[in-house]
């Protein structure tokens, strides 16, 4: 039941314009075809007025290197590799969130990651 593997948490902010490509990269680096639904609603706001989609999850430590590997292999469940490549070129480790970047924060606390990304949660009207 308990895996003998260490994981790290990564929290990633994506501008809505980059969501389709970022989801293809998630499908390539992830564990299955449903990982192309990693980024959904732009529920976070930056002071610059832009909204962002944010996802946070556990990855193997190699993620921070794998995400920059050239010619990523296509997963067995398939993916749009051109889109994934476009997203890959926009990945940066560290904040803040930027419209033309895909900013990833490595750290156990997703709330601290939000601060580093310069984002606050925006809530729908109830």
């Amino acid at each position, binding site marked *: 039941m308990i895996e003998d593997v260490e994981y790290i948490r990564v929290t990633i902010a994506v501008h809505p314009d980059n969501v389709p490509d970022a989801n293809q990269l998630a499908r390539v680096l992830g564990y299955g075809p449903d990982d192309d639904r*990693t980024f959904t*609603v732009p529920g976070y706001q930056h002071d610059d007025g832009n909204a962002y989609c944010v996802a946070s*999850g*556990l990855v193997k430590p190699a993620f921070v290197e794998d995400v920059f590997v050239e010619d990523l292999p296509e997963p067995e469940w398939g993916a749009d590799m051109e889109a994934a490549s476009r997203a890959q070129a926009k990945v940066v480790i560290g904040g803040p969130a930027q419209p033309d970047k895909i900013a990833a924060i490595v750290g156990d606390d997703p709330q601290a990651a939000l601060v580093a990304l310069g984002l606050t949660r925006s809530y729908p009207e109830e």
Partner: protein
Amino acid sequence: MYAYGYGYGYKFGWAKGRARAWTPAKLFAGSTRGALYDADIDESVTIASGVVSQWKDLSGFGHHLTQATSFARPVRESINGHWWVAADGMDDNLRTEDNFDLSHTDKITIWAVMVRGAGNPGRIIVEMGNTYNHAGSFYMSTESGIRANMGGPGYMQKSLDTYTSLTERKVIVALMDRSTGEPPLIYDGGVLTDGSSAISGTLTGPYLGNKTLSLFARWNASSAVATTYGASKLSALGVIDRLLTEEEIAKLTAYYADRAGV
């Protein structure tokens, strides 16, 4: 910690080496619908790549909770010698994929062994339905302390501001009776605590059928995406299609007392 085996033995309360000890699964013996989740039952939680991909229903009704997207899967962590399923409050959530039909009843009870958790407001613990305040749905959250809400077409809710910290562990039981015209009753630690109530409109009819039980997320009107997430932790959760008696609530509280730190 793993005294009870998952499945037949758990459902009927047979402990290894002990006969017929009481477990929450016994509550479902006379019910026709419900769900029971317990992170302390090792076999009921499936871990994939370090995160929880499935949390099995121990009630016998098969309403297993799943999450297919890796980043949206919660983690399992140990607190006070017990296992908890912990959501990050960013995107983690679990959902049933089958038809969780409660259309035969206007009375349900929800219980949770939970930690409020830090982070965003709108800390949804459990929600039934596709839409916030959706007709015929319900939710329990840690907004304003603890909130239990029945919806449709109006809503009736009660809030108790009894949490003293973001790490406090509690056993909460909410009795939701749509026929009374009154907000839910909330038992905090086995004690009925009076809190603030809110009522809008009236409730009619039973709960709806063909619905989804969701943990840690509030779903928008389209049901396609969640818009608010809860950074909460659950060690156990139950939903049953009847109102528990005070004696049963006392048994639940006693059963979970060790993990809740009572």
